[in-house]
């Protein structure tokens, strides 16, 4: 997978069972440590694995990290209070052994495991939790996670009840509340408080900081960072999980992250045996790697549809103040739902699946991917490509064909526009080229323009200087709430017309209402009905023409034990504490 426009957002919710099953403190643990017992088959202790990272991390500071690779490394060194299991997609206890919710759904009380230690041996208590949340909520720290913790316009209030109990107060019920804790690392107050007080927090835990300044609650801790080459993590001897035979996790002594800058380079290094695990690669490399599978002792996994959805959308922004008459003229087409429906009907999604993804993807007609089994609206229609239907729709919208086959609008202007994609993503460029060919059959003259990723995002979200674009988003969680930013008309990633002062259309207003409602409703069945309606409205009005959701493809050497990849990010390293070398 090349660059994916990932919404950095930790999580949301789902699970409505309250309280924590299992995980009772174990008598055999030393000095009153309340260790969590994992269910995995016990593995061999020792060994190391090597993993390729697609870019170098930008920081090791969990509060400031916004990019995927930084977070991949940080996740191995930190832990959260409540975690989303990548296997069940439900919440499970982590540093908090249990929690309770008040009847009105506004107050969460979390009970911490007692006797835990950071990787430098210092004990964990409620003050560390309070300190961590102060950092995430501090406006001056500019943490990308802050938005998550602002619910109903007010930041979550955190209070210490006693040394191992913390209370979170929300101003309104929030259905996804426990899921927001996923990925919020608890930080050591004893190491970071001074930097925070002196205003130097932005310079704490950078890539060049020495390893003894770091401590976390994750399975590993920093051993060595070689700029531009690799980061090496070693086993955290104080980690708070053990397997059912009583071995303290993790099994591995060391994990090495190599910086391998492109997907092709990662594929080659995995094929050559330099790395042990390959996280997400594109489908065209599957047959290439498959050939060597047995000879080289690795295995490839096709996990089916994940949470990435790719789509085409048109510029529906209000450009009156921007002065772009060229685009404004074309917007009279784009704003007509029949035009968008016609484009959707003309697109040959089956060919996209076959040619772009070698069959390893699912065609989409709605914004929820089949990987998201709990929330997808299965009653949405899946019409096959139909140029006839597209032509009818265009005709009813006042378009007509000229004799030489050019489509013209009611004023006789030929239909011509450009589709923007990012050059770094071969799949999206390919989709755009196929769409161009499909639309040429309707008489539309479409051009594909590839730009560098940041240049494209700048046009989409800031200058609005584009006509149409092919993009993809990956939801960070199975819940609809982290997608609020995309579907609310006021949202910053409401791609076709971001940050509206008030909804531009009737159906956008309805989506706004439904999304707000589902966020504060606690009952899953009711929420599902609300979100189904959102999906129907989107499928009807096609502000985004959904195209395809690629399968999650990963690979690992046969010698890696307990390898259980998941369809939610992080796909392969989510159970790094349970992996072992056979």
């Amino acid at each position, binding site marked *: 997978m090349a660059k994916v426009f990932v919404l950095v957002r930790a999580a949301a919710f789902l699970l409505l069972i309250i309280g924590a099953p299992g995980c009772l403190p174990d008598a055999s643990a030393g000095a009153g440590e309340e260790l969590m017992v994992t269910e995995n088959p016990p593995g061999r202790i020792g060994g190391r694995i090597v993993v390729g990272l697609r870019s170098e991390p930008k920081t090791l500071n969990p509060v400031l990290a916004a990019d995927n690779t930084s977070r991949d490394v940080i996740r191995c060194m930190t832990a959260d209070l409540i975690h989303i299991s990548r296997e069940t997609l439900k919440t499970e206890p982590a540093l908090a052994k249990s929690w309770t919710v008040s009847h009105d759904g506004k107050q969460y009380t979390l009970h911490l495991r007692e006797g835990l230690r950071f990787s430098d041996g210092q004990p964990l208590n409620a003050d560390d939790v309070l300190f961590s949340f102060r950092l995430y909520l501090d406006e001056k720290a500019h943490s990308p996670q802050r938005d998550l913790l602002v619910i109903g316009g007010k930041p979550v209030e955190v209070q210490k009840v006693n040394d191992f109990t913390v209370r979170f107060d929300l101003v309104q019920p929030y259905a996804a509340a426990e899921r927001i804790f996923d990925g919020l690392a608890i930080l050591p107050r004893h190491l970071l408080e001074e930097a925070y007080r002196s205003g130097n927090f932005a310079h704490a835990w950078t890539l060049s900081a020495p390893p003894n300044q770091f401590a976390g609650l994750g399975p590993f801790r920093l051993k060595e960072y070689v700029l531009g080459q690799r980061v090496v993590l070693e086993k955290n001897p104080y980690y708070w999980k053990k397997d059912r035979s009583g071995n303290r996790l993790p099994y591995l002594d060391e994990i090495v992250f190599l910086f391998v800058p492109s997907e*092709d380079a990662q*594929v*080659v290094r995995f094929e050559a045996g330099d790395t042990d695990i390959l996280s997400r690669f594109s489908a*065209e*490399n*599957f*047959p*290439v790697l*498959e050939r060597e599978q047995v000879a080289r002792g690795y295995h490839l996994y096709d996990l089916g549809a994940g949470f990435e959805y790719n789509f085409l959308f048109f510029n529906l922004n209000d450009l009156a103040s921007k002065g772009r008459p060229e685009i404004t003229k074309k917007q009279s087409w784009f704003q007509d739902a029949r035009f968008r429906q016609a484009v959707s009907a003309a697109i*040959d999604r089956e*060919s996209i699946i*076959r*040619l772009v993804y*070698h*069959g*390893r993807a699912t065609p989409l007609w709605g914004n929820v991917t089949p990987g998201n089994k709990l929330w997808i609206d299965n009653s949405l229609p899946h019409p096959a490509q139909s140029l006839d239907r597209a032509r009818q729709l265009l005709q009813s919208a006042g378009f007509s064909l000229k004799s030489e086959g050019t489509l013209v609008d009611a004023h006789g202007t030929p239909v011509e526009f*450009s589709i*923007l994609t990012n*050059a770094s993503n*071969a799949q999206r*460029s*390919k989709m*755009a*080229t*196929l769409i*161009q*060919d499909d639309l040429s059959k309707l008489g539309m003259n479409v*051009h*594909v*323009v*590839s*730009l560098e990723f940041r*240049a494209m995002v700048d*046009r989409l979200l800031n200058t609005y*200087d*584009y*006509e149409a674009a092919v993009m993809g988003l990956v939801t960070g969680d199975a819940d609809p709430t982290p997608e609020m930013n995309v579907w609310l008309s006021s949202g910053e990633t409401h791609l076709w017309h971001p940050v509206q002062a008030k909804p531009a259309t009737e159906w956008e207003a309805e989506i706004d209402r439904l999304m707000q409602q589902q966020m504060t409703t606690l009952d899953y069945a009711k929420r599902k009905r609300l979100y189904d309606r959102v999906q129907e409205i989107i499928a009807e009005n096609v502000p985004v023409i959904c195209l395809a959701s690629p399968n999650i493809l990963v690979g690992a050497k046969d010698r890696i034990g307990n390898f259980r990849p998941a369809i939610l990010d992080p796909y392969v390293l989510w159970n790094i504490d349970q992996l072992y070398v056979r």
Partner: protein
Amino acid sequence: MRRRLKLRGAIILLAGFQSLILLAGFFAPYNSTAQDRLSPFAPPTRVHFFDAKGKFHARPFVYGLKNNPVDFGAYGIDFTRVYPIRFLAAGAPYKIAGIFPARIHLLGVEEPGRLFLLGSDGYGRDQLSRFLYGGQISLRAGLIAAALSVSLGIVMGGLAGFYGGWLDNALMRGAELFLALPWLYLLFAVRAALPLHITQSQVFLLLVAVMGLLGWARPARLIRGVVLSAKERNFVLAARGFGASDRYLLFRHVLPQTSGVVLTQIALLIPQFVLAEVTLTFLGLGVGEPLASWGSLLSSLQQYSVLSSYWWMFLPALLLVPLFLGYYLAADALQERFKSVSL
């Protein structure tokens, strides 16, 4: 004698190549943008004279393909479907030299049979057709850019060499500046400053203009050197003694002496500019999909899966070898020829 043969051989090779490309529509079995979505990455179609029973057919034929939706390289051959090759067959419409509409192609097979002599690309487009049509863009870009940069070189180098003094200094320092320019970044900057959607002909002009304008410095230096020595020749001095004007001297006596250098430079620059087009398209600055150019044909080789799985994607690159060889042979022969003349 050998030299003349070499030159003649090079010229025949180049003329053959150019006419293939000029008449791409006729020689290409398909339109360069026609997609066959059921045949992505099909290997080169084998042309048979003997059928499965060993029987000889005077008219060559091809078999149909059975495709595999997941692993594109793994096509099977469907022996039950036989498509004889038809010569001068009617097919997709095209225009000869961009003007005269026509439908006749040199080779073709009946639908749904496919004649992919160089295989097909990831969209099921015929590589041979794309190569021929792509040459129209790439080779033309190379020719025009070479002509542009050499003409600029003649003007600049001629003036600098002939007049000398401050003009010489200014022009040659300017040339050095051009040689030192980070032209790739310049090109990125130019592309970023242009509007989002520019037509293919604008992209083409941009390519040609940038390559031509940035490439004049080297020929200018060479021409200046020749002019410098030419203007000191006895017959030039004699003409000057008779009162010939600068203009007369330049056009009658000095510039004709540069013709060897100029021709050699053109023969050397064309392949260089064709390669420059390849590089620019490789970097996403050239003509975009779905139009073909040699650069866009080669840029698909950037992907590891293509590089390692579909060997026929290399064929366009191999076909460029005789073309470049032709130009270098021509340059070589021209250089020898003019060297012997001037001695």
